[in-house]
C-alpha cells in the first residue's frame, strides 16, 4: 500500500501526498509485513513438527496435526485478508474520476 502513496507522489511531483496518508500507508505496510512474518513463523513450526515426526525423533502425532492445523488457519486468514485488500484496491482503481 505504500507503493500507492509513492506512486501518487511520483506521478505528480508538484502534489505530494499529505503527511497523514503517508503515515497511515507506512503503518499499514508494517502491519501487513508483521502479519506475513507471523504466518511464516507458524508455518516454520509446522514444518519443524513434520520433520521431527518424519524422522522419528518426536512421536507426537497430535502435536504435529495441531501445528499443521494452525498453519492452515493462519494461511487461510492471510489469504482472506489479501482478498479483501486486493478487492478494495480494485474498487478504488476502477473509480471513475
Amino acid at each position, binding site marked *: 500500500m505504500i507503493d500507492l502513496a509513492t506512486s501518487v507522489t511520483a506521478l505528480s511531483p508538484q502534489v505530494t501526498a499529505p503527511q497523514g496518508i503517508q503515515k497511515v500507508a507506512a503503518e499499514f505496510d508494517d502491519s501487513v509485513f508483521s502479519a506475513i512474518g507471523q504466518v511464516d513463523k507458524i508455518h516454520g513450526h509446522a514444518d519443524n513438527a513434520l520433520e521431527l515426526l518424519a524422522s522419528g525423533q518426536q512421536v507426537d502425532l497430535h502435536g504435529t496435526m495441531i501445528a499443521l492445523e494452525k498453519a*492452515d488457519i493462519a494461511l487461510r*486468514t492471510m489469504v482472506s485478508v489479501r482478498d*479483501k485488500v486486493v478487492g478494495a484496491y480494485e474498487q478504488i482503481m476502477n473509480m471513475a474520476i
Partner: protein
Amino acid sequence: MDIIDTFNISASGLAAQRVRLQTISSNLANARTTRTENGGPYQRRSPIFEASAIDSFGSRLDRALSSVNISGIDVATGPGRRVHDPSHPDADASGHVLFPDIDILHEMVDLMTASRSYEANANVLDTTSELANRALQIGR
C-alpha cells in the same frame, strides 16, 4: 484469547490423556509382574494433572483459563496382593507371592474414560478449526 490459545489448551488435554493411556498400558502390561529393580512387585502408576494458567499476565479472561499440565506420575506404595502359590519362583518361605495391586477391570474402565477424554479434546480442536474457517467465510 485467540484461536491459537484454544488449540494449545486442547493440545495440553490431548497430551495429558496420552500420558494417562501410557500409565494404563504400563499397569496392564505389568499386572502380574513380581520382580522390579527395587525389589518387590510392580507398583501401580497414575498420572497427576495440574491446571496451569495459559497467560498469567494477560487479560482477566486469559488469566481465568488454564491448560492441563502433567506434574508427575505417582507410584503406589502399597505392599501388593498376597497370593498363596508355593510353586511360584518368587514365593516366600510360607508359599506366598506378592503380586501388584492392580485391578484389570479398574484399568479397563480407566482406559475407556481416557480414550473418550482424548476424543473429546480432539473434538474441541475440530470444532475450533471449523469455527475459524467459518469466520473466514464471513462476507464471501
